[in-house]
Structure formats: C-alpha cells, structure tokens
C-alpha cells in the first residue's frame, strides 16, 4: 500500500519538493496538496515582472492544472488547512474536507509583515505577496495616481518600479538612510538610489511611519516627525514573517519559523516543514534558492535516499529592476579581521567589492556590472584560498592562474543549483543537453526553466553549454537572423556578395530558407541588405517592406495614417504653412501636431486620401515612417542667437538635404547645435553636431528613446565640408555593418566604438565610404512624387467597392 503524503501550501518550495520526490520515487506516495490560493503553483518571483508589465499571469505558472492531474496529485486549491489532529493524523480544511496522512509537510511560506499603524485597515493599503496583490495594484493604477511604498528593500523597490511602469507617481519610504541595507553596503546603496531616482522614484529616507490618513480609502501617510505625504495606494513591503500559526496550534515547536533539523523534520515525528515557514539552525530563509536546496534534501529523505542532510545556504540576491544591475552575496560588510578589494568607476557607474576572511572570499557586492556574479558566488561557496593573491579575484592576474568560468563549471558538483529561481541543478542542465539535444540557452530555458527567472544565471548556463558541447559546436548552432535560417547577418550578407544574389527569392532559395517566403523578420532585412550591397541592381521589393514604408505614411492604431512633409532643419515659410493648413482643412485632418523633430504631423488620414494629399502638399516626404534619415533638428545658432558660434541652421539643412531618403538599418536622427549649450539636444542623437569656437564636434551613437544613451565624441573638425564627409562615412559604415533593425547606439556598443573610430580614421577609408554612399544617394527618388505621378501606383491606395447592383 502506498503511504499518504499531505502537504499544506501549494507554493514554490513545496511544489518543487514534490517534483523532486516524484523524480526519485514516483510510486511511494499518494499525494494531497492543500493550497489557500485559487491558482496552480506559480512563480512568485515573477510577480515583479507581472507588475512591471513584462510578463502576464499565464507566463508565470510553473505547474499547470494538468501537471497535478498527470501526476495523480489531489489538489484542494482555494482551501486553507484549518486544523490538524496529530493523534489521528488528519488535516481538515476550512471547507470541511479532511485528509489523512502518514507524512505531513508544512510549506506554508510567509505572511507579509504589516506595520500595525493606525488606519492600516483602510482600503488601498496592501502588501506585495501574491497574485491578488498584483491585481489590486494594477487595478488601482487605473483610477489613482499617487502610490507610496513603505520599505526600501528588494521587494519594495520592485513594487515601486512596477508602479512606475503603471504610470503612477511613486514615493518610497524607508526607515534607514540607505536602501537595501541588508544586501548592500553604503556605497552601492547610494549608487542604486541615484539610478532609481533617475528612473523617476522619489525617496523619503529616515522616515518613520506614524499613521495612515483617510476616511474609507487611504489618502495619505503621516510620519512621526509630523510631516505627511499624499497617497491613494500604500504598499507595505517591510518584511515577511514565517507562516507558523497552524503549526503552533498543533503543538509543533515554533521559534521564528517552524523549527526543523537537518532533514527538515519538525519536533513531531512524520511532520516536516520546508520553505520560508521553516527555521533551520536559527535561520528562516526568504529566497528561493535555499528553499529548493531544502526541498531536495526533504525529497531524498521521504524517497528513502541517503543524504548528508541540509547544511544551510549562502544566499545571493539580484534586484529585478530593468536598467539596474545589482548583486550581493554572503558577508559583504567589513568586519574586524576581514579585508576587502574594491573597484569604483564613476565614469561607467560601476562598483565592485569583494570581502575576504583569511584569504577566502566570504562576500561580494556588485553594482553596474554584475558579469562576475556567478564566479564570485561559486568562490564564496567553494571556499578556495586566495591568501596573498586576493587582488586577482577582482582584478585578474598577470600570471593567468585565475580560474576561468570553464574551470568553475568543471568544479561544480552535479547537484549544485545553477538557476536559483527555478531550482535547476547542473545535472538537469547537462541532461537537457545530452539527452534532449538542447543546443542553445533558449532551448535549455524551454526545457528546464533554467535562466527563466531573474536571468542572473545565464552566463553560467552558457558556460555549462559550452563545456558540454565544446566551443565550436555552440558556435555552430548559434541563432540565425530569424526562425527561417540558422545563418547570421554576416553570413547572409557574405553570401549575397560572394554569390552575387540580387533578389530575396534567390537568397532564400540558395541559402535554403525554412519557410519558402520568409517571415516579417527576414524579408525586410534581406531587402535592405540587397539594396545596401547592390544599390543599382537590386529592385526594391515593396512587398517586403513593412506597412509604413510601403504606404509612405505611419499606420496608426485605428488603421488611419499620418503624413509628415519634409521641413528641412525645422525651417519653414509662411507659404508652406498656409499650404499645410489648406490641405489639413481640405482633407478634414483630425489632428495637426508639431512633432519632436521640428515638423508638422497630420494625423488620422484615410489611406485613400494619401496620394491626393501628397499631390496637394507638393512637398517632399519627411520619411517619418521609414528606416531612413528622419529629421535634422537644429537650434537657431549664430543666425539669431547671442551665444551661437556657427550657423547651425544651415549645417542642419545641408545635412538633411544631402542624406534624406537614404535607406538605413534603422531610423536615424540627427541634430545640430550652434554652441555647447546644445539646445538641439545633439548628444542623444544617432549623430549630433555641436558647434565650438572655430569648428564642430561630431557625436555619435546617442539615443533618446527606450534605452537612453548619451552620444560619444567621434571627432572634432574645422569645416562644414568635413562635417558632411565624416557624417557620410559614418552613416555608410553603419549601413554596411549593422544588423537590420539595429539603432546606431546598439550597433556601436556591439561592434565597439573603437572599431568605428578605426574604420573612419584614415581619409582614404572615409573617401571610399563616401563614394559608396554618394552612389546610393544618387539613386533615391521622392516616393510621394513617384506615386502621385503614376496613376497605377495611386490606385493601389483605393479600396475596391462592389458594383452597384451587388447586394447582399
């Protein structure tokens, strides 16, 4: 007869334990799980991503309903275990269902700690722990504006980031002067604060909450010092406490958590506890990695497999806030007798600290660049002795005896956990490679979930993959430009040149595309590459252009389009303005707007009206829709400005006239400022020109969009001709080497700015590049004019209508 196992709690630690148990000994138990939440087991960690809008509820389910069924697990979801009779060995739920057990496991997790403030029971005061809280916050963001998060720890900051993404104003209240004080030292903490402030968070530090204001719903938060802030939503993220009440009521020994021994057994025989509710050697953990380790030990115990027992864990943390890289592990604060090696680089905003005790790494904090995190974490765990050569750990060694990631992987034992978020061991990953044929990190993730959580372990997963398959094989299976091919951009472009392929069809044929007519990723890319390599031979393939470039207008969410005529350098005339106004009236344009690039946008135009409007405007297309030169923003410069040192308007117009209509891998935005005050914001452009006394500075690879990046100085030149020359060479080098759909900022970071500088260094190389770009520029034509002048082309914009007699 099978033994009966009942588990209370259907969360991450508990279900992971059950998964392990089923692997070791699938037939030993009849399993019943009682879970208070009305959901199958989901990834609590990812709630932050759900809140931030990066994942949805379905994405975070770890074990779906079918999993329980397929494994014959009886799940009582939405029911709370209310009573345990330890004599008769039965558990009864709040809905009156009783389950009897031979072995009982507590996996009840924690409860969020709610500050006992007067008014804490008001509507709009919540914690951040489960799906329900997440839903409450998302809902609140639709009707309210101002959120206050109490608690500047990991959870509080992730909640705050999510609320910012939900377009709420967010104040973070913290009792100490430094954020995440349990995970970071002061330096890292201040760097973090600066970065988060930049992202829009507001901090109220060293503030003690006093009471919550409001009638039915919260309206504000008052502090002990008498000040207060407005709030429509208060999220308390001040800590968690192990959920032990039921165990306590059942006569089980409880301290902070449910006290367990090295085999996770409680003070009662046959009763175990695992996860955040358990306290082992005085520690109740609050992160998943150690909980999975506990689960693995408990699974062995109940499956009848010997083990050494649980020895406690060293923990590491990573903050899951985009744009912020923070890592900390072990004992990272200076203590008597410890020594630390620090690196601080204010220029790139990087801070690293490694703490040693008697030559062994005992803790580390990384900010800005967390590339060393897996290596440091495993050094902490391995206890390797670095006495006398501590510096090598962080700074590398001249002798080269530093352990490489490859050696690290080799030294890891098979059951060591690689992915802390999902509890995936090295062996499981190896198995997915050797037995299931995974050949990329993506496939390993799909197979094992490794690196699917916070992503911190990705470098380690990569290293395991490389060590298992060998460098060459990993290289050979790299991902292609899209699902239709395994070839990379460079290989495709190479083949186009080598075999003189001039149409997409040829490329797909010769290179054995998986889908006969490609997909929306490769079709426009190929069309671009072909046009770039053979400007005069390749015939533009309109059917491979995305809708905007095909219609020469921007599609809007309701299917209408927007029309933006060219206004060189942002300089217009009364006559042009009148013309635009007349056209806008004639075609009933619902919205006329000045764009961020100094021109005029006519929005809400019906597709069939486009050719007519273009004809009436009789102005060149502004290419506001294209992967092409968009605008050249200018400041007024020396023409009128008292600070101006050069004629920025003329420079801008010259640039725009020269490079308009050029196909580029992604959109390109330029700007010219007349002096270093930089009113045209030239230093966040793909290429920005800033006038200085007696010359011009050219900045490149800036971006003001999703990933803001300040441009880097490429060169200082003296004359306008040189500005045009450098710009031409730079743009052509970008055209020839970037991936389709890659902005200059991403491209320059990928290939390295030094490579770009090198390529443009010699006058000879620049001239050659300019010659090629001039050839392409010689062939471009204004698309609006072409369509207006060709009846066939204009007609394609009309809808077909049924003949009058047809009635349905």
């Amino acid at each position, binding site marked *: 007869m099978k033994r009966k196992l009942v588990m209370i709690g259907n969360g991450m630690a508990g279900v992971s334990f059950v998964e392990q148990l089923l692997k070791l000994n699938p037939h030993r138990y009849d399993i019943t799980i009682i879970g208070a939440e009305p959901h199958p087991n989901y990834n609590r960690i990812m709630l932050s991503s759900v809140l931030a809008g990066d994942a949805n509820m379905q994405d975070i389910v770890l074990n779906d309903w079918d999993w329980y069924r397929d494994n014959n697990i009886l799940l009582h979801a939405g029911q709370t275990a209310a009573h345990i009779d330890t004599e008769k060995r039965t558990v009864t739920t709040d809905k009156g269902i009783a389950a009897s057990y031979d072995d009982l496991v507590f996996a009840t997790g924690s409860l969020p700690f709610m500050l006992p403030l007067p008014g804490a029971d008001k509507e709009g005061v919540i914690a951040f722990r489960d799906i329900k809280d997440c839903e409450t916050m998302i809902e609140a963001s639709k009707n309210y504006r101002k959120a206050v998060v109490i608690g500047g720890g990991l959870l509080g900051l992730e909640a705050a980031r999510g609320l910012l993404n939900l377009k709420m104003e967010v104040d973070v209240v913290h009792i100490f002067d430094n954020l995440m004080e349990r995970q970071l030292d002061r330096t890292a903490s201040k760097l973090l604060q600066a970065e988060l402030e930049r992202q829009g968070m507001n901090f109220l530090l060293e503030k003690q909450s006093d009471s919550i204001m409001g009638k039915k719903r919260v309206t504000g938060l008052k502090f002990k010092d008498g000040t207060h802030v407005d709030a429509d939503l208060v999220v308390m993220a001040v800590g968690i406490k192990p959920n032990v009440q039921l165990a306590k009521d059942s006569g089980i020994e409880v301290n902070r958590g449910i006290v367990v021994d090295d085999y996770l057994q409680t003070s009662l025989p046959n009763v175990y506890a695992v996860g955040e509710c358990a306290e082992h050697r005085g520690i109740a953990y609050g992160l998943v990695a150690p909980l999975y380790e506990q689960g693995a030990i408990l699974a062995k115990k109940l499956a009848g497999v010997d083990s050494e027992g649980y020895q406690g864990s060293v923990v590491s943390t990573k903050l899951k806030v985009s744009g912020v890289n923070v890592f900390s592990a072990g004992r990272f604060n200076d203590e008597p007798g410890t020594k630390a090696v620090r690196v601080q680089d204010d220029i790139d905003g990087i801070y690293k600290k490694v703490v040693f005790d008697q030559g062994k790494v005992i803790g580390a904090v990384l900010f800005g660049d967390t590339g060393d995190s897996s290596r440091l974490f495993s050094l902490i765990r391995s206890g390797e002795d670095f006495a006398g050569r501590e510096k090598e750990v962080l700074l590398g060694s001249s002798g080269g005896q530093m352990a490489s990631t490859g050696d690290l992987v080799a030294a890891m034992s098979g059951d060591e956990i690689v992915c802390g978020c999902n509890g995936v061991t090295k062996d499981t990953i190896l198995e997915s490679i050797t037995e299931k044929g995974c050949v990329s990190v993506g496939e390993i993730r799909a197979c094992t979930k490794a690196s699917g959580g916070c992503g911190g372990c990705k470098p380690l997963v990569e290293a395991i993959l490389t060590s298992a398959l060998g460098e060459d094989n990993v290289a050979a299976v790299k991902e292609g430009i899209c699902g239709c091919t395994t070839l990379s951009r460079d290989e495709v472009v190479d083949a186009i040149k080598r075999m003189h392929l001039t149409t997409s069809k040829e490329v797909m044929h010769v290179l054995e595309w998986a*889908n*006969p*007519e*490609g*997909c*929306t990723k490769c*079709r*426009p890319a190929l069309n671009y590459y072909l046009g770039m390599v053979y400007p005069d031979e390749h015939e533009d393939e*309109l*059917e*491979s252009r*995305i*809708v905007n470039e*095909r*219609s020469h207008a921007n*599609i809007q*969410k*309701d*299917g209408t389009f927007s029309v933006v005529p060219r206004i060189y350098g942002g300089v217009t005339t009364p006559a042009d303005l009148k013309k635009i106004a007349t056209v806008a009236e004639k075609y009933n344009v619902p919205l006329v707007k000045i764009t961020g690039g100094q021109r005029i946008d006519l929005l809400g135009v019906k*597709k069939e009206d486009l050719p007519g409007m273009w004809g009436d405007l009789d102005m060149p297309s502004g290419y506001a829709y294209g992967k092409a030169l968009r605008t050249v923003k200018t400041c007024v410069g020396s023409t009128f400005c008292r600070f101006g040192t050069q004629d920025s308007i003329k420079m801008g117009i010259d640039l725009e006239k020269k490079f308009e209509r050029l196909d580029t891998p992604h959109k390109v935005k330029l700007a010219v400022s007349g002096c270093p005050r930089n009113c045209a914001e030239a230093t966040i452009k793909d290429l920005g020109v800033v006038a200085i006394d007696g010359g011009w500075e050219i900045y490149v690879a800036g971006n003001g969009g999703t990933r803001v990046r300040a441009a880097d100085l490429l060169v200082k030149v003296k004359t306008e001709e040189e500005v045009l020359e450098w710009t031409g060479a730079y743009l052509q080098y970008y055209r020839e080497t970037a991936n389709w759909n890659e902005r200059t900022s991403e491209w320059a970071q990928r290939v390295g700015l030094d490579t770009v500088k090198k390529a443009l260094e010699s006058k000879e190389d620049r001239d050659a590049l300019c010659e090629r770009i001039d050839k392409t520029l010689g062939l471009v034509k204004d698309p609006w004019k072409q369509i207006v002048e060709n009846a066939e082309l204009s*007609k*394609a914009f009309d*809808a*077909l*209508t*049924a*003949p009058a007699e*047809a*009635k*349905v």
Partner: protein
Amino acid sequence: MNEVIVGHISEFTDRRGRVFRLGELELALFKLSDGEVKAVENNCPHKNGKLSEGMVCDHHVYCPLHDWKIDLNDGLVQAPDEGCIQTYPVFVDDKGNVVLQLAMQSKVS
C-alpha cells in the same frame, strides 16, 4: 450564395493586400505568389489591426500592428497566439475577374 465581382486580377499586386468594402463589411484580399486570391475579414482578432496592410509570406499574413501570423487558408491565428478570423471563398474566373462568394447568412446580414 451571392457572387460579387470585386475587381480584375490585374488590379492586384503579388503579395499585397487590397481592401474591399460592401456596406458594413470590410475584407482584405491578397494575391499570393502562385496567383491565388484569398479573402478574409479585415480585422485582426488581437487589436483590430488592418490585415490588408500586413506582409504576406506564402499563405500567411502578418498583422501590421503586432505581428500576429494568420493562415489565409483557414483563418487560424498561428501559435503562440490564438484566435481565428472569418475567411471567404474567392476565385478568379476565365476573364480574370476576381469573384467573391458571400453566403447569405454571413456576418453581413
């Protein structure tokens, strides 16, 4: 069944969409590379994107707004997304007319 001539095959460009309107009804018609014409409702099940503006790859159209991939033969949205759209039978007669067949009980009525 009602047959409507919506136009001539020469008015269609390979792998490009055209819009056809009849009363409330708005369809997207596409000429595939093999010359066949397909007709579907011009409305993406995701967020009402105009499929007529989408890119055509073999017998699939990709919605121009968020890139859902839809099979023009059966109207099924391809994984990982889900959904389906109404398809309408079309044929090209021997004079080159593109003829749409509308069932009486279709959505239009």
